[in-house]
Structures are given as C-alpha cells and as structure tokens.
C-alpha cells in the first residue's frame, strides 16, 4: 500500500537535504540494513511500522523512517543501490540488530574488544566500518557507515 503524504519534514529535520531533491513518500515502508542493496528492501517491509521519506541528492538518496515510538532512522543509499551509512536519534535506541544488519555482530565484537574502562559514548573506527553512539537516558543518537562504500565526493559528516 503506497500513499502519498504531504511534502516536508516534521520537526524541521533534514531541510538541508530537501532542497536539491526529489521527494518520494511512502507509508509502512520497505527497509534495508547497513551494507544491503536496496533491491532487497521488500523483504523487511513494515518491520518498523514507521513513515518513510526518501530524499535524493546528487550523490545519494536518504531514506528517513519516523518510528511511532519517537526514533528517527536514516539510511544513506549510494547510486549503485548500497546502504553505505545509517544514522539514528530519539528517546530510545532503534533495534540496532535490524539497522546494522550483517554488521551488527562485527560491531558488537568491536565494542566488546574496547578497553572502555567504564561507561560513555562509543566511537570505533576499524578498517571495515565506523560506529558511533552518544547521548543519555531519553536522548540517544548514533551512526554507522562503511567507508569503502561511501560514494566519492560525499563528506562523511553528512551521515547523521
């Protein structure tokens, strides 16, 4: 079931991405994990029961899912269809296993290998991926990306 929703973003989010773009809007959307190819997104359809907005820029497309419990999850898709980055924010963490896909286990292992000596934000830059999460009770934010998949010319600070 695809139905259009009004143009624009709630809470003023991602207006920067909106300007040079084409907007596609879907309800109960498809979803893909980090590293997936968007041709496979139908398999995870409706898992997050959220609202999707897709915004195309010159170098990539951003799929933004607003989850009913308040989180926002963004996936960054390269022109060749690969999800090269994901980012999330909100009062709760999203289902990170779902968001990180096949990278979830390697990232968990990387977190476990950290000599953290306590609690606080995590920042991991391995040869294969970057994982960062920060925040506190009722306000979390994070991102993960695969540097080798980031399209040429994209500033990784845009993955947020």
């Amino acid at each position, binding site marked *: 079931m695809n139905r259009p929703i009004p143009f624009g973003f709630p809470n*003023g*989010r*991602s207006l920067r991405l909106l300007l040079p773009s084409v907007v596609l809007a879907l309800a109960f959307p498809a979803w893909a994990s980090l590293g997936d190819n968007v041709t496979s997104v139908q398999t995870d359809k409706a898992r997050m*029961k959220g609202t999707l907005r897709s915004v195309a820029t010159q170098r990539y497309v951003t799929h933004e899912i607003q989850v*009913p*419990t*308040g989180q*926002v999850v963004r996936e960054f898709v390269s022109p060749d269809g690969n999800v090269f980055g994901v*980012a999330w*924010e909100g*009062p*709760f*963490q999203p*289902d*990170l*296993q*779902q968001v990180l896909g096949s990278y*979830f286990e390697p*990232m*968990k292992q990387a*977190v*476990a*290998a*950290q*000599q*953290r*000596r*306590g*609690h*606080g*934000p*995590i*920042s*991991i*830059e391995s040869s294969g991926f970057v*994982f*960062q*999460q*920060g*925040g*506190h*009770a*009722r*306000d*979390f*934010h*994070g*991102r993960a990306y695969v540097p080798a998949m980031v399209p040429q010319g994209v500033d990784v*600070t845009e993955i*947020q």
Partner: protein
Amino acid sequence: MRLLGILAAVCCLVSLVACGGGSSSTTSTITVVGASCNPTSIAAGQTSQCTASVSGTGSFSSAVTWTASGNGTITPAGGLFTASTVPFTSQATITATSTQDSTKTGSTTITVATAGTVNSVSASCNPTTIQGGQLTACTATVNGSGNFSPNVTWTASAGTVNPITGVYTNTTPGTYTITATSQQDPTKTAPVSVTVVNGVSNSLPIVVDGGPAGLNVSYANGAFATITVCVPGTSTCQTIDHVLVDTGSVGVRILAKAAGGELDPALVPLPQLTSGSNVIAQCNQFVDGFTWGSVSLATIQMAGETASTPLNATVAGLPIQLIGDPTIPTVPSSCTGMKNESNFQALGANGILGVGTFQQDCGSGCTSGTPPNVYYSCASGSCAPTLLGLAQQVTNPVSAFTVTNGSLGDNNGVLVQLPSVPSGGTTTVSGSLIFGIGTQTNNALGSATVFDTNSSANFTTVFNGQTNSCSYIDSGSNAYFFQSAGFPGLVACTGSISSFYCPTSLLTLSAQNQSATNTNGATGTVSFNVGNANTLFSNNGNANNAFMELAGPNAPVPNCGSSFDWGLSFFYGRNVFTAIEQQPVTGTSFVGPFWAY
C-alpha cells in the same frame, strides 16, 4: 533706633549705588517666627491650613516660606498642608521660614492618622517543621478596613527571624513562636509555631577507586557509593558497595548475585512488580549497552535518607531494576544493543544509582501509544513490550525520599562534590554525594551558575566555533566526550581505546556553556585539559583510576551540531548540582530541571 535710620540715609547720600530700592528696608529685623496649623490632626488626603506670625523691628517683611518634613506636602507660599497616605499614625513637622531672614523659623506639628483600621493579623510559615539550620518562610496577612497599613514586623521567641521578610531559621531543636505584629496597630498580632528537628544526614561518601574488587579491567573515572537495599516495610536489608553514581540516568539498578553482583534474593527477597499474573521486566538502554532484569520493589537507604513508594503508586516500595534477575525469562530478541551489560564484568559495578534530572527513567514515552522496547510484560517464559504508568516506572530515588510532613525534604536534586585531581591522574579520590539543593546548610547553591535544560535534558556547549545544542553533564560518563570540530591535535586513539583522545601533548582547551532556555540566559566558560589516554592509563604502573584530563570523541547529531558530554572529568574540583524536574529550590526562583556549578 531712629539714629540707625538717619545713618542709613546719610550713607545713601554718600553712596547712591549701594542703597538699592526702599529707603528704610535695611534697618528692619526679624525677631520671632511662629507657626500654627488648623486642624492639628488630620487623616490621609485631608488638608490643614497653616499660618505664620512674624515679629520684628522696622519695616520688616512678614512673608514666610512653608516646608513640611514627611507625611504630606505643603504649598510654599500659601501654607496649605495635604496629608499623604501613611502606614500608621505619625507626625508631620511644618516649618515657616522668614523670607527676609532665613535664620528665623517657626515650627509646629500635625498628626497624620491612617484612614483605615486594622482588624486582625493572620500568619503562617512554610514549612512548619525544619531541620536545624534550614530556613522557613513566614508570611502574614493584615485584615482591616479603609486605608490600613498592610505591614507587619516579625519577632521570634528564639532563633533568627528577618523582621521585614519573615524568613526564620534556628539550629537548636525545639518548638518556637514566630510572631507577626501590625506596624499600624501593635495590639494586633499573629503567632505561628515552628518546630526545629535534628537534620537528616544527607551526605553520602563517594569514591573514585577503580571499581569493585574482581573486575578484569579496573574502572576509570567511576564515582561509587555504598547504598542499602531493603525489602519494603521490613528491616531485611543488604548493603551494596560500588554502585555507580550516574547523573545521566534515572533510577536504582542493582546487579543480582546470580549475575555476578551482590544482591542475594535469599537474604533480601525483593517483591517483583506485577501486572495480574505477569511479571514486569525492563530492557534499560544505556549509550553503550543495555541491562535486562525485573522491575522489583525496594526501600533504598542512603546516609539518613530513605527512598520508598513514589507518589500515586499503589504498591509499597520504590520500583528499581534487579539486573540479571534469574527468575525472569531470558533477554527477548527485541531488546538489542551493542553490549548486554547484565553481568559484573560488563557493568563494572554492583549497580547504578541514577540521580538525573527526570523523576522516572522512561516518562510519558512509556505510558501511551506504541510501547517502546523498554518495559516488558512476562508470562509463560516470554516477554513482550508493554506500557507502564509513571508511578510504576523505575523512579529517581531522590524524588522518592520520605519527607517529614510539613518539612523541607532533600528530594529536589543532588550535589556531587569531588576534589581536584593532579595532572596525570591518581589512584583514589574521595568526595560526597549530597542530597537536596538549598535544603540544608551543606547544599546551598551559593554562587553557582544555574543552567536550565530542555525537555531532552540538554543544554548548549560551544567548542572551537561549533555549537553543540545536545550537550549534557553526566557523572556516569567516564570522560569528556565531544567532537574535535577540527581543533588541531585533538585526534582519537587507535585500537581498543579508540573511544578516547590521544593528543601528542597536553591540550589546554576552552568551551562555553549556555542555558538551554532563555529563562535565565546563563553562560559560562570552562577551561579544561585533554591528555593522551594511552599515557594516562599507563602512568603510575597502570594504577591510576581518576583522571581530570581524560576525553574522547563523539558523533554528529542532526540539528544539534553534536553532544558535548561533560563526564566525570568535569566534576573534579567542582560542586555540581543536578536538579530534578518540577522541583523548586526554596528561597530562589529556580525550578528543576537544571544543572548548576
């Protein structure tokens, strides 16, 4: 006398220039000026006509100038006095001054009465019971008719009361009478009884010492407290050491013995929170992982304070999380995170003492709509997300402190006090977790700057030109965590300590904090140092646990710039207050949530 007039005339003949006008004015003198007014007693707004009698010699002038001191005005030439409104009956002094000789004056008085009558005075003090050294604010209402004075003067049978404001304090236990007396009519008084009791001990020792015995890797920058966990309504208790003091989370979480912690259900059988026949469990998210356990009910004792049943709760006891409770089902698949911290080595502590700015850990996000993956209802070996009312949620123990009826409780926030740490770190640091803000002599805001937070418990930190509007102060984060914003040399470490910075030399940095709201618009500059984490950790044969210079990177946040997380590094050498939402600070205009330092 006639002779003087002749001499004056002769003088004029000699020197015409000096004589001016009238031929005889320079020969007159003023001897006496008298003044009288009628009537001599008037009320506010009424008038009294004053007249002068001037005696003198020669062709003296009988003109006078009228002045009045207080309680009214008088026309300078006509002598018509108009009484102003006065708080109580008083006198005005009226003076007539000779215009010819200003050294000659005459005075009289007019009684100015108030236009109203005081009938009674009523008074009250809030609170009526204080701990020794606390303040209570007394207020009075004067009842009367007409234009009566509303002012009272405060006195006390013992202790100290401000005669104007009515703020009372006393250090000696007992019952005392504070009295408001009408200034207009001192026969009208109102006594108030105030009881002074011995103060509740509100200071809990904390220590930064590497964490509980048995950790594979010692904890860095963790402030730990020892607390007592009891079965509600009983004296069946167990003391738990090394509970992490965390101003970035909310609620008490205790690691069960079965998960490597200390709390032993055989010694302290805490009841579980239930819904019908289902047990309520929780997947609590931290920034670096999650804890899974039952919601259990306990009484928590810290220093002289007792945290128990929250307001509006229907079952006795403070809802806490019993992490790793072996009696509930295993972690459901929807409870995900980077690390399951429901075990001793991953938690690095025997529990978490969450004393942040919220009253509950989840709040309205868990009371309606789609239930998030936070609270779970468990039955038949499996658990599913559920909504949970505020009074059932894991609750900030400070906001649930038992408060003696009518007295000022220590339930509006906490003060963390830690001394400064030498450059390069040290092994152990001792400090205090003090309960209450502005409630006792040891927790006054004093000269601390108050920074309001927004609804997400954030304020703004500007660093190196980057505005980070999702910033916060968090004793549970073990360093400063912030984006370098391109600052030269501020580079992340590599390998297993990549969550910290490793500059090649000590960096001296500066950032500006800003209140999240325009309510008070507070700003303040913080100077801080960042050292090389690799070096810091290896100093002193790897034995140091407290570091003022430990910092690490952070992620970008949409519409926020980033977060500047002022972790425990920030707390050394400071008094840092964390005020709970909706809780006022008596004697100030400040209401939580806020931070102050």
